């Protein structure tokens, strides 16, 4: 198991780590058929269109109804396998990806799914027509042309070669829609759920429950195992209560450490808890246009003052903020090892020395009495907790930062308009893919994701080069160079990675634990041992 290997690495690296039941647990027995899976989802989707959505809560509802071109292989994260695609060919020379579509796949309305549906879907994602919102433009920026060569072949032509695009085809967000329905109404997916996934939509009571039943015509024979799904809109302490009372099997997003602890105590063996680093990290971004943050020394001092190792250890006792790490998933295939990290600015093992250096830098910059506002989004409570942590860290080098907690809209406009001094941000990635992860940290004019309003062509070049690099070792070296420069310049700083803790009723099997909130949500191989 790659995941397990990753986790072992993290363990060996000395990262604070509790337990991982492992992803293989489910495969031990033959899946049983039947049963209704009940789970909590934190929010309702704004509408039913996967392509315009970006919240995992929407995907938790929509994923079971759709197929994608490729997918992450159940029980084998992060391996990718074909979903609608039977096979595929990557040809760097001609800049093309060619996919063979499985024959005999049916939509829920009984019509056949062909290459045309796939091509039309990707056309909609890459070049959205008037009135259609695509959240995936960034991911598909390298795609030049999409064509259905015949009924079973789709070909993508790229502008420039990019190894990371393959993973994009496995993104659960890229639900394949029916070309025929899209032709009559390009916005049909907003109101109607109709795909070729393992479950057929039956009903949605807004604010309450979303129900679906098994699709008998699903192209994977024998799947899905479950008779149906019921997902309830609920969040907060109510979720843990409901798992404890046996009303729901789980919340795939995970529960808080306190919640997990409570379930373990009250349910014992009747609950299975899996945990590991999640692909979500918290970062703080300085506005490099605004004095004194245009002074590298000031930013660097603030970077050095953050005790990432001690912080993760302390915060990790009671919150999900459990792993110190850089811009890549700690313990993951692209991350620096702990030794490498400890040599980088802000990650040193000796926090006292780092803080002394920080004070010195502030003195040199003439900012010994630095005080500024840290803009924090009044989102999930843990984000506010993170703001509290940062302010406390900076206090220790005599900096007076103040938490300014604001609602999401003003926070969002501060982020996009640069009307902040320092701002707290969250980055949740779908998968471990450096090219995508690094868009958060390249120059402002290169990626809209980057909020620090800086221009650093050296970072941009490293980012660009690593995407083209096919040799794994050389690519890693480029990634290390990128990280080192980023932390030295301290424009925008990764601070802590969250732990994902999924507490499941012990009867729930066949679901694959993974670091992303977005994967394995179609429930095709999930089953209940009841």
């Amino acid at each position: 198991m790659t995941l397990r290997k990753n986790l072992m690495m993290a363990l060996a690296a000395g990262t604070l780590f509790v337990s991982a039941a492992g992803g293989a647990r489910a495969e031990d027995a033959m899946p049983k058929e039947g049963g209704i899976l009940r789970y909590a989802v934190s929010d309702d989707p704004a509408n039913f269109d996967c392509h315009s959505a970006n919240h995992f809560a929407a995907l938790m509802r929509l994923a079971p109804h759709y197929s994608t071109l490729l997918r992450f292989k159940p029980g084998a994260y992060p391996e990718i396998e074909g979903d609608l695609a039977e096979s595929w060919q990557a040809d760097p020379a001609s800049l093309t990806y060619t996919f063979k579509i499985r024959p005999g796949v049916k939509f829920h309305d009984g019509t056949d799914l062909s290459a045309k549906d796939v091509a039309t879907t990707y056309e909609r994602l890459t070049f959205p027509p008037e009135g259609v919102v695509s959240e995936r433009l960034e991911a598909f920026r390298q795609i030049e042309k999409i064509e259905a060569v015949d009924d079973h072949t789709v070909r993508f032509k790229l502008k420039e070669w990019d190894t990371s695009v393959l993973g994009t085809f496995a993104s659960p967000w890229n639900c394949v829609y029916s070309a025929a329905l899209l032709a009559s109404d390009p916005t049909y997916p907003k109101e109607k759920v109709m795909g070729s996934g393992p479950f057929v939509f039956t009903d949605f009571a807004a604010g309450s429950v979303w129900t679906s039943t098994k699709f008998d015509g699903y192209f994977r024979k024998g799947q899905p195992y479950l008779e149906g799904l019921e997902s309830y809109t609920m969040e907060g302490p109510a979720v843990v209560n409901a798992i404890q009372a046996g009303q729901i099997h789980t919340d795939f997003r995970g529960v808080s450490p306190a919640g997990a602890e409570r379930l373990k105590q009250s349910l014992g063996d009747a609950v299975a808890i899996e945990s590991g680093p999640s692909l979500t990290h918290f970062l703080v971004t300085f506005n490099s246009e605004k004095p004194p943050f245009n002074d590298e020394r000031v930013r660097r001092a603030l970077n050095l003052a953050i005790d990432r190792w001690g912080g993760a250890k302390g915060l990790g006792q009671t919150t999900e903020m459990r792993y110190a790490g850089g811009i890549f998933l700690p313990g993951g295939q692209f991350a620096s090892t702990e030794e490498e990290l400890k040599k980088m600015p802000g990650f040193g093992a000796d926090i006292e020395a780092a803080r002394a250096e920080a004070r010195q830098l502030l003195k040199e910059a003439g900012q010994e009495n630095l005080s500024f506002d840290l803009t924090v989004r009044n989102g999930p409570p843990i984000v506010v907790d993170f703001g509290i942590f940062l302010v406390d860290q900076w206090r220790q080098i005599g900096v007076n930062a103040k938490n300014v907690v604001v609602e999401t809209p003003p926070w969002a406009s501060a982020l996009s308009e640069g009307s902040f001094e320092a701002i707290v941000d969250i980055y949740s990635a779908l998968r471990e893919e450096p090219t995508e992860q690094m868009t958060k940290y390249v120059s402002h004019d290169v990626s809209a994701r980057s909020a620090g309003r800086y221009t650093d062509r050296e970072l941009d070049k490293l980012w660009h080069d690593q995407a083209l690099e096919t040799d794994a070792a050389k690519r890693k070296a480029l990634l290390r160079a990128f990280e080192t420069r980023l932390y030295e310049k301290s424009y925008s700083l990764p601070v802590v990675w969250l732990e994902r803790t999924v507490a499941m009723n012990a009867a729930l099997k066949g679901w694959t634990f993974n670091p992303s909130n977005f994967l394995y949500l179609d429930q095709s191989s999930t089953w209940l041992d009841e």
Partner: protein
Amino acid sequence: MRNPFATAVSDGLWTEAPKHSGFLHRYVLGQPLGALGFVLIVAGFAVSLLAPFIAPYDPLATDYGNAVAAPSLAHWLGTDSFGRDLFSRILYGGRTAFLIGVSASFVGCTIGLFVGIASAYIGGWVEMIIERFLEILLAIPITVLALVLVSSLGRNLVYGIDLNLILAIALPIIPKMARVARSQALTIRSQSYIDAAVTLGFSDLRIIFRHMAPNITGPYLVLLTAFISQAILIEASLSYLGLGVTEPTPSWGLMLAGNAFNTAMTAPWIVIFPGVAIAVVVFAFSMFGDALRDALDPKARADR
């Protein structure tokens, strides 16, 4: 007959004009619950004010090694999930509660008082317009109106105090006070000494401030007290919903927000103490307010 004050105070009726003759003495003797409330208010106010001297810890200082610690000699009420001392946070949370509760109620009642008097004194179309406007405000439930204001005004922090939050809680109080003030003022307006003042050519402002307002002190104080307890509850509810006070300002409602209830079984102190703190303060103000009303109102006193 509909009692004109019934809409004003959430928890009882005001029936007659106040009488001032030495009620303090009767009050303490005849109102043990009210006296208890008063003592609790004074005590609560004192410890909040003196929080920096009493609190054993900085309410914002985190100590992760000591997170979710049970009550002990070192931490009398235990610690929260950041290792922050709950006792210190409750003391400082008291400051927030008193500050927001008292100032919101004071602002709302005072504006309401003068709006009410002015409307009764000026009369005519001004009175009509004010009345219409108040009626509109009264048609929207307090919590709902406060929430609308919170969402539209955003935050406006001055020394860590959200002025807009105070405004949001104060606004719904204005029409309630204004109503009472107006009907009291109408009675006073018809008294001969006001006519005398008008004849003597005193300015309108002088008449309103010097002659009319002091005579409405009784109902004003009663409503002020009653609305302090409501304002504290609304602040707690809004903060609980994540729409009121924000971290790191200690607030009782905020201490119950988020995942606090998840720890309720393993660390009950985290949810019990802030809830008790809210209850005690609101309890104190309610009892004091009731007793004040009874003491100021001869008819109500005769009943008890």
